[in-house]
């Protein structure tokens, strides 16, 4: 269909433009989406509603005169060939510079372009300088201090770049790419507000630069900021919003956006991975696994996001699959934080925590802001009973991203292990605040309240109730609720929860001591309530189990029969024949 066709055309040109400017990750992303568009558009006859937002083609086709901003983006796209012109003028130098750039010789590239005045050349020069500075900064970080400590190395090019770019902007001779770079520089310098404005300006005039979008996304730390951005209504905005929602932990919204986008880009690996990410956050591990399996079939050398897959495999304890994955990424590229995390996960699953810590450390060496590595390392330290180290690792994770509920949870756990349940409560509170839908967090908090030292059962009940309401997969909450109510003398509530627990266990066909306990309680309870038939049912069910409960059930049954038949027999005694 037209809209797909338009997207395709836009993307095709964008790939070329982006890679021409050496914005490789952006061009990679755009190319991925290009291939992700469904090949056979005739198959589907999309309804109007499906394209209400985002796609400009429909509107243009129906020639409505609504003031949509999408066509404007199209216009700006049309104007891009102007930039192509100066390519012809200084083509030779540019080509040389680009070749140098491609060989990672950034300073050389910048040097070649020193006297060029075309917009494209200026951008490439600045970008090369920026990257040169970044490279040097990373190296310095390694040279000056271990990457685990804080370091004061800065990109030395930032000052001069900012000066030049601000001058260009004042002259008005800056293109969207320059704006992007300017935003990047400002973000690095810490003036986030200005950076946001520039990035918005950049994406509004050139929406296909995914790098600009993702920088913008990292600057949107609250939903208010996100809502206040004056963005044009281009279809790229949907990608951006989906990603931003995910960062803001609005997983369902994000999922909805991605599913909508999948209508157009149905083969996009990126969208698939993002959906997997959202599902992972919603703890739908089965689906995540399916998605990743498919992803790996299509794209067997992918390393990105694979650490999440490894987390899922870890959670499901798939030893061989995890080792297979680890081997695959190791062969593909062993010096990626993701690879190290995967290997770390594998060793952790194997119970070799020292080795696993070593790999997480390597991941952190490669990227010291690797959030999941800090958190996972914390988990390992907890396993190794080195709680102070665990606390430290978790705390660093929290300092990198204060919204990481796993790290808060880990901190709480560490303190709980040290026998400080009250102190741990603070951290659990933080984590449930960030992720109120996760039953495990509520259960952990409840268990904290339940400890012998605190013994705040009322609070524990409240937490368990939250846990039970938010899809408690392990079904701890219901059982505990019943038990606690029983302990506090609320037999009615206890019976209610035992019944619920029982229903659940029946539905999931689980069996075990909990079942016996529930049955026993319910039998006694309904007997005390004089509901003998109900009690009999429970007792008969109990007879299927071995152990002392069977005997208890038998005696209960006997007692009930006695009581039921007792009355007539008594009367018989009164009137002897």
């Amino acid at each position, binding site marked *: 269909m037209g809209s797909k066709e338009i997207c395709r055309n836009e993307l095709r040109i964008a790939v070329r433009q982006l890679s021409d400017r050496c914005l490789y990750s952006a061009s990679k992303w755009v190319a991925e989406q290009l291939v992700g568009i469904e090949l056979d558009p005739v198959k589907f006859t999309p309804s109007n509603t499906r394209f209400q937002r985002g796609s400009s083609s429909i509107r243009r086709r129906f020639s409505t005169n609504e003031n949509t901003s999408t066509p404007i983006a199209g216009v700006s796209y049309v104007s891009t060939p102007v930039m192509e012109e100066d390519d012809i003028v200084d083509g030779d130098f540019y080509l040389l510079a680009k070749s140098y750039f491609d060989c990672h010789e950034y300073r050389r590239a910048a040097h070649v372009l020193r006297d060029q005045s075309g917009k494209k050349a200026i951008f490439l020069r600045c970008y090369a300088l920026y990257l040169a500075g970044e490279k040097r900064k990373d190296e310095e970080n390694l040279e000056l201090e271990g990457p685990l400590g804080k370091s*004061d190395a800065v990109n030395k090019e930032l000052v001069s770049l900012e000066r030049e770019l601000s001058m260009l902007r004042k002259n008005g001779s800056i293109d969207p790419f320059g704006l992007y770079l300017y935003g990047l520089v400002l973000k690095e310098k810490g003036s986030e507000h200005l950076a946001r404005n520039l990035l918005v300006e950049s994406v509004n005039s050139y929406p296909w630069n995914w790098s600009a979008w993702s920088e913008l996304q990292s600057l949107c730390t609250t939903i208010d900021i996100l809502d206040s951005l004056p963005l044009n209504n281009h279809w790229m905005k949907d990608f951006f919003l989906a990603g931003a929602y995910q960062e803001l932990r609005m997983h369902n919204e994000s999922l909805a956006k991605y599913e909508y986008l999948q209508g157009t880009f149905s083969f996009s690996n990126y969208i698939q991975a993002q959906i997997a990410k959202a599902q992972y956050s919603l703890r739908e591990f089965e689906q995540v696994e399916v998605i990743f399996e498919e992803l790996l079939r299509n794209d067997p050398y992918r390393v990105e996001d694979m650490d999440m897959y490894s987390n899922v495999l870890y959670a499901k304890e798939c030893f061989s699959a995890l080792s297979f994955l680890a081997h695959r990424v190791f062969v593909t590229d062993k010096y990626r934080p993701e690879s190290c995390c995967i290997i770390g996960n594998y060793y952790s699953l194997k119970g070799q925590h020292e080795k696993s810590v070593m790999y997480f450390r390597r991941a952190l060496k490669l990227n010291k802001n690797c959030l999941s590595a800090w958190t996972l390392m914390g988990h390992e330290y907890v396993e190794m009973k080195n*709680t102070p180290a665990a606390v430290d690792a978790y705390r660093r994770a929290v300092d990198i991203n204060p919204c990481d509920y796993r790290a808060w949870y880990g901190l709480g756990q560490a303190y709980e292990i040290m026998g400080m349940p009250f102190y741990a409560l*603070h951290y659990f509170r933080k984590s449930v605040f960030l992720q109120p839908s996760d039953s495990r967090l509520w259960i952990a908090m409840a268990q904290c309240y339940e400890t012998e030292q605190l013994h705040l059962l009322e609070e524990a009940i409240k937490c368990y109730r939250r846990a039970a309401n938010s899809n408690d997969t392990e079904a701890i909450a219901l059982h505990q609720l019943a038990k606690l109510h029983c302990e506090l003398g609320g037999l009615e509530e206890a019976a209610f929860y035992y019944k619920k627990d029982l229903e659940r266990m029946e539905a999931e066909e689980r069996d075990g001591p909990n079942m016996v306990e529930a049955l026993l309680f319910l039998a006694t309870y309904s007997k005390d309530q004089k509901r003998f038939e109900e009690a009999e049912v429970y007792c008969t069910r109990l007879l299927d189990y071995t152990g002392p409960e069977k005997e208890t059930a038998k005696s209960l049954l006997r007692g009930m029969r006695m009581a039921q038949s007792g009355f007539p027999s008594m009367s018989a005694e009164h009137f002897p024949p």
Partner: protein
Amino acid sequence: MAGILKVPGAFDVTPHKVSLCILLQVYASPNQLFVPFPFSSFAQHNRLGLFLLALTKSCDDILEPKLHELINQSREIGSSSIDWLADHLISRLSSLSSPDDLFNLFTEMRGVLAGQDAGIVEDDQIILDPNSNLGIFLRRCILAFNLLSFEGVCHLLTNIASYCKEVLSSRAPHEAHLDGSGVNLMEASEYENMDLENLVFEKVTEEIEAKKKAGERIPFHLHVPTPIFGLVEDIELSAKPTFKQSTKGKEAISYAMTLDGSSGAVDHGFFLRSNWQIQGYLLEQTDAIEKHGSSFPLNALEFMLGQLQKLAPELHRVHFLRYLNSLYHDDYASALENLHKYFDYSAGIEGFDGIPPSSGFNNSGRYEIALLCSGMLHFHFGHPKQAVEALTEAVRVSQQHSNDTCLAYTLAAICNLLSEIGISNASGLLGSSYSPVANMGTSLSIHQQLFVLLKESLKRAESLKLKRLVASNHLAMAKFHLMHVQRPVLSFGPKASMKLITSPINVCKELRLSSNLISDFDIESSMMITDGSLSTTWLKNLHRQRGSSVIFEETEPGNRSNASSFFSQPNSIPGSVSQLVGASYLLRATAWEMYGSAPLARMNALVYATCFADCASSVDAAVAYGKLIQYLAAYKGYKAAFAALKTVEEKFISVSKSQIMVLKLQLLHERALHRGHSKLAQQICDELAVLSSPVTGVDMDLKAEASFRHARTLLAAKQFSEAAAVAHALFCMCYKFNLRVQDASTLLLLAEIHKKSGNAVLGIPYALASLSFCESFNLDLLKASATLTLAELWLSLGSIHAKRALTLIHSALPMILGHGGLELRARAHIAEAKCHLSDASFSVPETSGVVLDSLRQACDELQILEYHELAAEAFYLMAITFDKMGQLEEREQAASSFQKHIMALEKVTDEEDPLLK
């Protein structure tokens, strides 16, 4: 940012060290004979040596001076050769353009050192002994350079280039000033500081020597204020890794610089150079925060801390200070956050650059302190339940880790908590949770639990030799004895005698024991000096030197002399100690106030206000001043009291507003009652009642007082039945919450109400009950006043009881005249006169002298108080006496005075009181 940031703990070659090496080379040039080239005399040469020695010793500072600062400092040597030195240094540094130059430089350096095998040294040759301080420094530099990788060398080279660049670019204008006359102000002030440092040096070295011998731990003081006295939490955090460096000697050549960005931030804009000074600065700020409470500038400090954190991320105490700062500004969320952050970081291992904490504490040994702190945080914010939870957990964890010190402190904190909240709502609090007190059985009352806990805590503190804690425990004990009426400790059973007592002797004993602290510290004061405090002293002097105000400048000229004399010499007694001792004086004042000796109470408050005002927290100081003003009001009349109040109000402008506010309301109420403005009195009463229930919780004492005053107001307005009802309710409340002292005075008030309502027979039992209360609680002054009331009651039953009344009055008179306030004295005088007058056997001409004397005194006193009602009565009696004596002229005079007072009483003017906003 000044200088170049350096990672502490590691010895790196830095541009600064390279310049030191170059200077060393000049100092000990191997080729020169006798007096080396640039120097004209030995003295100069030696001065350079001393200068270098000082510099090498301060090379562990976090920030190193920049080149131009170094050059400025080196001018101290004060010779003509300095220009040559500076030029030499700069040219040497700027000639380093390739890594090879650096290699050559350090190879040259090796020549400065005398080789081990050099053997014979010629007399007149200057050679650096490799084992001297300078020699070791040079060797360390060489070693560190040799350890550098090529990247490291490259870094050093670029750093040197930027180190030189600024000087080179500013060189041209600088040279214009080199004749010495054009030194700018900034430099001048630096010179002054330099002199100052030299002074401090000697002290510092001594102290360091002492500390080396003594301390393995660096006490880190956390002060926690409590309304009556500050229970000082002297938590000994185990030594920070930086302690290791103290052995290297810590004479810090350093000076303060105003930071460009923060120069507006009051006088906190100092930038500190050495690790110790930063620690010292932090400690000083800690003290300051505590002292000034919420009036401390939040943002200025926050800014400083932000800067510090950027500079030294491994300095976790910054988080702690942030915690304190937000604690005192009642920012719960941020306080909690920072507290957790501090302990998360400082307790881990990785944050410490691999240096393990000193022995004696295992790694997990700090978490109980975290609990202790969080307990106190909750306490501060008025969450007693959480506080108890945290503290019990702290007890448990410190038992687990066998950290007795922390346990002792935690127990003390629990005691403190109990004594603060126990009276109103703690019953059931402890029973609900698993706690060390719970196993004592729930049969014990909260007071008995508290008592047992206090004993336990004291015992622990004594066995652990935590002197401050012992002292503060003694204080808590004294407070307990003072405030709580108890049955004899050993008889809990139902059959035991129900006689209640207070034990002033115990109070006295505990107070004395707590004051012993100061003598302990006199003996070992040098041992207990903390690392930070010397830097603090230095800083304080700096403040003075620069003439910048220390935020909380004394505004009262009268007090200034006292305070400054205490300021002038650096006090060898740590602030926390003098604070504790001060608290004991304050408590003494309270005790005397209660037992009824006004002069002694006043004396103690005065001692506190003059000697300990420097280190006291503003809340405590306000309490002391409040006591003094109350004394003034009772003995010198309201005029004097209000004058004093005005100055005090200025002094504590925002600090402890409620305290001063309460005092003001009390005074105003008192005066309104005396003048007969019952409407105004009622209004003030209501305000007081409002103050008693702030957001954080109910202040029982204040609440009781408010309703007591309410009853008095009603009494003054002659609404007897209402007054009696209020007093009755008050009595019940006091009984319920164990406020026994208030019980006694309420009973007295009831007697008073019945007396005024003309129902003397009903009043007598109340007066007697009050009397027996006072007797068993040792409330001497109150007892005297109860006796007086009893006498008045008897008297009003008829003249036949006049003799009995007179004996009663005479028995109370010594106490009243010795310690009582104006009002009480006047009442006693009038009652005495009345007794004489109503006595049937009394004949005017013979004893008129006695009657007139006492009446005259009463009149004088009442006129000071402006107590119209009683004054009128006194003048009336006087007029009658004169009439009986036939002295008509005097009679007329007295009668006219009587009329004046009656008029004043009836003409309830609504004149706007200037003191009532």
